[in-house]
């Protein structure tokens, strides 16, 4: 990402090995297999959070293939490593759509990468699943989003924290579209709930030294810190803030649930962190426990099963249902099924349904609180939180397809 040329060499290697693998495996069913392209960052800055996504897809595909496939057709995965590099996404998205001719693509971690490949999906009229929590607002008929969005994560978390800890909020966020738009959501929700923003700082990706930022925070003494930091370099903030004895309660939409910082850092650097997530492996339900057991049977060395891993897993099942009900992998037929508004699966987190207007998923939202010993407790759970904002703001994919991303300050045009 910081060094795009660096990725090229490794990319060539991984493509070569994949090409070998795919020519070796051409049994009879290959003709009618459902081909799923998987573009995820298996190396580089984001690898720690994204490797479990690939595993989730593989696990679901294995289970479905063992049970007879999607309407009798086997799933064939076409997996490429995008190396946390936006240009790789563009090259490989063209490759899976044009050369590999996949039926659907599961792609993307960072919002920058999603916005990099989205025009290509539109150009070739493909269908892509984005299985990541993000800043919300993508209204595009070629995209199905199974990750949580701000109205699901912030409108639950921020009022809860403001009631408990106070009204003065300070945001530090990664300086790209995800951080900027998420910070805008924080600003809006804080204002709606009668709070006050006492500071906001955007941190370039890759920055790892936070002394001055910590001091800026101490200067204004906030009641709540919203930390929307992304990538492994920025995660150094928690260790450094704890070392400087900065003990403001923290809230986030990405930590713990995505980067499992509570497992990676020595306690108590992440104590008093609050995250709204639609799944983490600590979720204490029978469905979740069975899922974790199943996962570890296949991947015994998995460091953590994060929310994106679960999203990727249940997204395959959502896709299976769509194809079986549509009787085809044709995008318009699949969208006809989504338009009925009852595409739902019982995922490890609970029930997940696709909203026809925005093609985003409803979720069970768990408020995870990190203790001093980095254990997780769930002081509150919200069932069936819908991705309502886009639909209410005026995005309706059953009627028109603007293929645009909207924000609170730039909502869909009315009428």
């Amino acid at each position: 990402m910081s060094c795009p040329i660096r990725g090229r060499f490794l990319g060539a290697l991984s493509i070569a090995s994949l090409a070998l693998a795919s020519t070796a495996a051409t049994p009879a069913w290959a003709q009618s297999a459902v081909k799923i392209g998987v573009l995820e960052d298996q190396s580089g800055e984001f690898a720690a959070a994204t490797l479990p996504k690939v595993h989730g897809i593989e696990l679901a595909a294995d289970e479905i293939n063992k049970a007879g496939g999607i309407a009798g057709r086997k799933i064939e995965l076409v997996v490429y490593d995008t190396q946390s590099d936006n240009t790789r996404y563009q090259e490989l998205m063209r490759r899976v759509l044009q050369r590999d001719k996949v039926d659907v693509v599961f792609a993307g971690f960072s919002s920058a990468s999603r916005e990099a490949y989205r025009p290509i999906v539109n150009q070739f009229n493909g269908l892509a699943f984005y299985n990541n929590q993000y800043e919300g607002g993508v209204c595009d008929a070629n995209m199905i989003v199974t990750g949580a969005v701000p109205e699901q994560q912030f409108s639950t978390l921020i009022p809860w924290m403001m009631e408990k800890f106070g009204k003065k909020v300070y945001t530090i966020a990664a300086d790209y579209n995800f951080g900027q738009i998420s910070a805008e959501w924080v600003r809006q929700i804080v204002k709606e709930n009668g709070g006050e923003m006492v500071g906001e700082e955007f941190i370039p990706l890759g920055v790892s030294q936070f002394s001055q930022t910590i001091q800026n925070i101490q200067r204004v003494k906030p009641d709540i810190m919203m930390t929307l930091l992304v990538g492994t370099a920025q995660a150094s903030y928690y260790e450094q803030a704890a070392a400087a004895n900065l003990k403001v309660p923290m809230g986030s939409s990405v930590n713990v649930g995505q980067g499992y910082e509570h497992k990676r850092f020595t306690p108590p650097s992440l104590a008093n962190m609050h995250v709204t997530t639609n799944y983490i492996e600590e979720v204490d339900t029978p469905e979740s426990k069975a899922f974790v057991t199943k996962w570890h049977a296949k991947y015994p060395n998995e460091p953590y099963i994060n929310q994106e891993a679960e999203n990727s897993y249940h997204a395959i099942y959502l896709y299976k249902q769509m194809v079986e009900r549509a009787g085809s992998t044709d995008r318009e037929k699949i969208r006809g099924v989504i338009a009925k508004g009852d595409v739902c699966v019982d995922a490890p987190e609970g029930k997940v349904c696709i909203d026809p207007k925005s093609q985003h998923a409803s979720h069970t939202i768990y408020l995870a609180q990190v203790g001093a010993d980095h254990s997780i407790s769930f002081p509150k759970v919200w069932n069936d939180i819908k991705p309502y904002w886009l639909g209410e703001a005026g995005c309706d994919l059953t009627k028109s397809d603007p293929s645009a991303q909207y924000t609170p300050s730039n909502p869909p045009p009315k009428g």
Partner: protein
Amino acid sequence: MEILSALFAFLYQVGDALAFLVLSACGLAIIFGMMGVINLAHGEFIMCGAYVTVYAVRAGLPLPLAIACGTLAAGVVGILLELLVVRHLYSRPLDTIVATWGISLIATQGVLILLGSTMRGVGTPLSSFTFGAYSYSQYRLVLMAAAVIVLVALYLIFNKTRFGVHARATIQVPHMAEALGVNTRLIYCLTFGLGAALAGLTGGLYAPTMTMVPTMGASFIMEAFVTVVVGGADVFLGTAPAAMVLGVIKAAMTSWQGQLAGQISMLIAVIIVIRVLPSGISGWILRERG
């Protein structure tokens, strides 16, 4: 008291930025600044030092000893690389870039494959202290002290020891040094090893404060090259003033306008310096003197 508190806060930030710049750059100042080898694997030497340090702490060693292990490990790796690869490329600087870059890719991806995408750190030692309105990490003071000690030690090594004199002679006029009986091959090898060991020391020192990932070296690389380019060829006369200038600029701008402004202002300062002083600060100091 208010002014004192603000003053201390600013000095602490300058010291912190200075320590990061000096420690990032010191190994590279020797390998790139002195020897002229553009070492793109510098970040991976740092990563090597950090990983060995963390493993040594896990094995039960106290942190200072673990950091020494990390330093030593990076130094040994550096010497091996010099013997196997870099030695054959001294007359081909562009090929060195490709070779060290390749080594860096292999190291990053190798660690990812063998040790996984992330590793639990060791936690920052010592505790915090309060001065005026702010609280600070004590370990950061250790880092500042370490940066000063490294600079002084380098000055002493290169100016007061026999090895240092030989090293400077070898790098300035290799044939003459050889004619006078200096084993230049050995000197090159040891100097490269010293540079790598210093990078390992940096990794060990920063390991408790950072996320342990295979790509962690990358976050030092920009600061390292920038400091060495601004500083010029002399390790002591270059790195120290360069880190001072850049540290003050970075701390002041970050305090005033945030991290982004800090990064931008530092890079603008670099552009200005290499435009006005093509051979860096040390080149300018030596010319003024001479």
